């Protein structure tokens, strides 16, 4: 039981490390490339900005769900 718990915690920790690295890279991409464009869009065409905002958050959700599920499977698969 203790070995199982240790394995779970280790794989979870590994997931967090890999995920954090991905997130840091993602921040720079999103904030650098989209920041100015989104600010401009929010001032020039607010309705399009609203649609883009929803599309971006749903798109990110689907993408990150895929990434986290992939990491869960990959790291748990190796540790169990």
């Amino acid at each position: 039981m203790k070995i199982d718990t240790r394995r779970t915690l280790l794989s979870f920790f590994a997931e967090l490390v890999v995920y954090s690295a991905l997130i840091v890279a993602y921040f720079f991409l999103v904030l650098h490339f989209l920041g100015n464009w989104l600010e401009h869009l929010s001032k020039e065409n607010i309705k399009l900005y609203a649609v883009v905002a929803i599309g971006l958050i749903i798109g990110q959700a689907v993408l990150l769900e895929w990434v986290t599920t992939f990491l869960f499977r990959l790291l748990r698969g190796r540790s169990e």
Partner: protein
Amino acid sequence: MIFLAMHFPISGTDISPIYLVIVGFLIGVLGGFFGVGGSFIAGPALRAIGMHWNFAVGTDLAHIVGKSVVAAKRHRALGNVDLRLGFIMATGTIGGAECGAQLIQFLKRQGNVDFVVSIVSIIIYSSISLFMMWESSRTVRSQKRKGTVKKNEVLKGRHAKDESSFAGLTNFMHRIPIWPVISLPTSGVKAISLWVIVIVSFIGGLFSGFLGGGAGYIRMPMMVYILGIPTHLAVGTDLFEIVISASYGTFSHAVKGNVDILVALVMHTGAAIGAQIGAILTQYFAGPKIRLLFVPLPLIGVAIVTYTLVTGHKL
């Protein structure tokens, strides 16, 4: 501010992305576990670092859309979503959310949005917390007296008997004979007036538009106590419904200039992994225990809002 701040131009605020990710992660775990958007923490947490309430409300809604997509998908896989109920509730919630957003606009024009929303949120969050503490502890004590929760049922929470101290109120609501009366086989509800569901969801939507978030803190208890939905199904269905209604709420707030999508995107990176962990944890707890664990959460929001209101300081 402890962490290095970054400038978010749309809302004109300086916030640490690390702070946003941590807040998002905590809200993700809570959302996946309790089926709530977590606005009782996210709203005050954004307000506490200097964001105006109108931006905190709109941005939080956008972040909740993303988080709920992940958690609802996970709950659907666990069999915790009543699609029929979810679609019906979405219609009432959208109407209520629009009324709540208009109310925010009115207060913004009057110039006292921060003060009024702070006071209302303190009252609402405290009331919900106290009520759920009273009800769930009473139910847990009653179950222990009757011995209805066996050891194996506690270990497999979703199969445990889901009792509530408000069975009388639930039965009364189920007997209201206003046409059309429908059944919800997935939730085990044989007959209920469609209008009861619509009114419950409208009230939830009103709070969603006014205080931000998916308003799961008020809708989830109403689904359990008024509609008589088992807690695990209420959690999953609430999340599914939030995806639809929060998307509408985000659009409505965004066209009013109340959404900083960059802040929402950063917060959501933490919430994405937290939501998966929270949803998996629900399998290990019985309904009344989940409701009892929910009790301290709105009080955290109350503490943050009160601190910001009284001292005028950012965290």
